[in-house]
């Protein structure tokens, strides 16, 4: 058992990156790592969200709790979150959660004074810190500030109604409340490996081939118009729904195609709420996963842990 190494060198190939979207391949690792990253991205990468609301005046149609809940769900730009302190272990304010190291203050004041309905949106929130603002504030890089971009609506006011409040935003993670989750969608699939049994395929008529190709709800196979051969159009479109396998079976041609999931190759799709960039979300997830492993390693640095962790303990100490 000594000397056995489980060390691997996973590789990443990025396919698409936009601010709030990323698609990449993760190879040469296994489901545990892929899934750990997914789980950390959803539940453990910190962001900043409104956590405490003091309502000064509210004569709107929505009650105080409702508005507080809506405010909490507004994504705030959270590049600073990783470096920020959790209020619960902030020394500067004794866990009061109101100091500059662990919180950001917001103010909102709106009153409808004419007969037109007033929309109170995330743009009416004034932040005490210009780095932490609601996500669809006009980004200086795009210069986008037109009438279409009205922000996230909080409440609508009619003539005479008023809303005034103070809100404290704090650092948190998705595990504590979904409002702190930076992930809109984080998912992966196993890369499929598809083999067509050409010999068996040629026993099919063109009609049967068409039927076979169309049996897949997603466009995985297609027919070459010239050679009338079935070819793999897009392997990754396959959802492992088994429809084509069932079709082959029904046609009396089991083994017409063989589909395997590559156990060490994953295609990730990551979409964020806008709180942090998709690329940053992934990097932060790795960072947090490392911190968690360090915590295990530290606790494993004792003789007792040797027995407790066994092979895993030896591995963690680089054995």
């Amino acid at each position, binding site marked *: 058992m000594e000397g056995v190494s489980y060390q691997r060198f996973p590789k990443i190939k990025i396919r698409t990156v936009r601010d709030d979207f990323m698609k990449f391949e993760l190879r040469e690792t296994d489901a545990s790592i892929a899934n750990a990253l997914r789980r950390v991205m959803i539940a453990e990468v910190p962001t900043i969200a409104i956590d405490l609301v003091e309502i000064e005046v509210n004569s709107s149609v929505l009650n105080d709790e409702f508005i507080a809940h809506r405010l909490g769900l507004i994504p705030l730009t959270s590049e600073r979150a990783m470096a920020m302190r959790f209020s619960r272990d902030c020394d500067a304010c004794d866990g009061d959660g109101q100091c500059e190291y662990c919180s950001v203050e917001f103010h909102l004041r709106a009153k409808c004074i004419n007969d037109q309905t007033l929309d109170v949106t995330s743009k009416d929130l004034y932040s005490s810190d210009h780095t932490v603002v609601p996500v669809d504030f006009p980004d200086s890089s795009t210069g986008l500030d037109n009438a279409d971009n009205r922000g996230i609506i909080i409440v609508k006011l009619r003539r005479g109604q008023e809303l005034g409040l103070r809100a404290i935003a704090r650092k948190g993670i998705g595990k504590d409340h979904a409002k702190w989750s930076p992930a809109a969608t984080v998912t992966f*699939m196993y890369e499929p490996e598809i083999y067509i049994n050409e010999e068996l395929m040629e026993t099919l008529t063109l009609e049967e081939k068409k039927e076979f190709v169309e049996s897949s*709800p997603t466009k995985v196979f297609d027919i070459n118009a010239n050679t009338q051969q079935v070819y793999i159009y897009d392997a990754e479109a396959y959802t492992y*729904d088994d429809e084509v396998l069932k079709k082959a079976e029904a046609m009396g041609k089991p083994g017409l195609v063989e589909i395997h999931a590559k156990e060490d190759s994953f295609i990730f799709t990551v979409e964020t709420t806008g709180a942090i960039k998709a690329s940053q979300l992934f990097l932060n997830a790795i960072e947090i996963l490392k911190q968690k492993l360090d915590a295990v390693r530290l606790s494993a640095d004792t003789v007792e842990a040797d027995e407790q962790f066994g092979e895993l303990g030896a591995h963690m100490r680089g054995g």
Partner: protein
Amino acid sequence: MLPRPEFFNGQCAIVAVNVHLGYNQEDSLVMNRASLERGMFRTEHVRSYKAEVENPEAPGKKQKIDDLVSFGKTQSKIGRVDSLEDDGFPYVGANLQTGDIVIGKHAASGVDHSIKLKHTERGMVQKVVLSSNDEGKNFAVVSLRQVRSPCLGDKFSSMHGQKGVLGFLESQENFPFTKQGIVPDIVINPHAFPSRQTPGQLLEAALGKGIALGGALKYATPFSTPSVEDITAQLHRLGFSRWGDERVYDGRTGEKVHSLIFMGPTFYQRLTHMSEDKVKFRNTGPVHPLTRQPVADRKRFGGIKFGEMERDCLIAHGAAANLHERLFTLSDSSQMHICRKCNNVANVIQRAVLGGRKIRGPYCRFCESVEDVVRVNVPYGAKLLCQELFSMGISLKFDTELC
């Protein structure tokens, strides 16, 4: 605005038919905590409290000044008055807890007539109304509001009578997810279907899934439902498995789940049966004045019934001491006296003895003696029965044994 032929009062949740760690057995369901935190199935409950006082300016009978009751804040002995303003009403937005006074009301003599929240009630003040009615009375109504997020034990139902209670709140990352990253809001148990014959729910989910992707409204009454072929063809066209199944990955391990899971949007409603309104617990508390057994009412901090079936269980287990404790010691334990000479009840009375002294103790009126009177432990209910029968001219006799 969308044309809305009717107002709906539920939500279309993404429902998966699957087992989830055994937390959706026996018609319970598992819900996604993240969905609830994002506001799914949150409801607002309003309850109002009304109080009346005589209008002092009203014409007609005049009362004594001391008996005149009016609204106002006084230091009350029955509950907290911290949230009340001087007029006796809480301010709008006040957070009232169990035991707080909702409406302060007292007589000029100082007698307290305030209305207190029962131990099951609490909420935020939504509105305070002060008005008068035709009978010359001033009245006040205070409305309390409560926002409730679903919690364990709350009841939900689909439109097919498939009702169930919430068995577990699971985190988003632990649910199975699809290639598209879709995670269910609710997981129901497949055993809910075979004997109940509600394929309508499956059709609803499959049709709803197609509609969610296609956007065209369809009627789904029993008379105009699109055929199963239409539904399956629609799903196939939109890139989903014909029968609504999907390949999912285990949220805990990331491995592919062996079987395909049926998933689709289903209209679910929250029912008014909520665990918060039903939780009952007590150690000691109020007893019924007649029977001296614990009261049953939850509002009055009553006890939990230990009924026949439960009794049968303890008997079957041979747990006699436990049974005795439940049904006697912790219920209506009492004592009575029996005269062993005539086997009648010897009541405790006060009587004169020689020397003009008066003493109090058990005394047999049949034998006119205090000799050989024993004390027995007996449920107060039995003692009561004995007394009631005695009042009708029937005397019970008790055989006793010393131990």
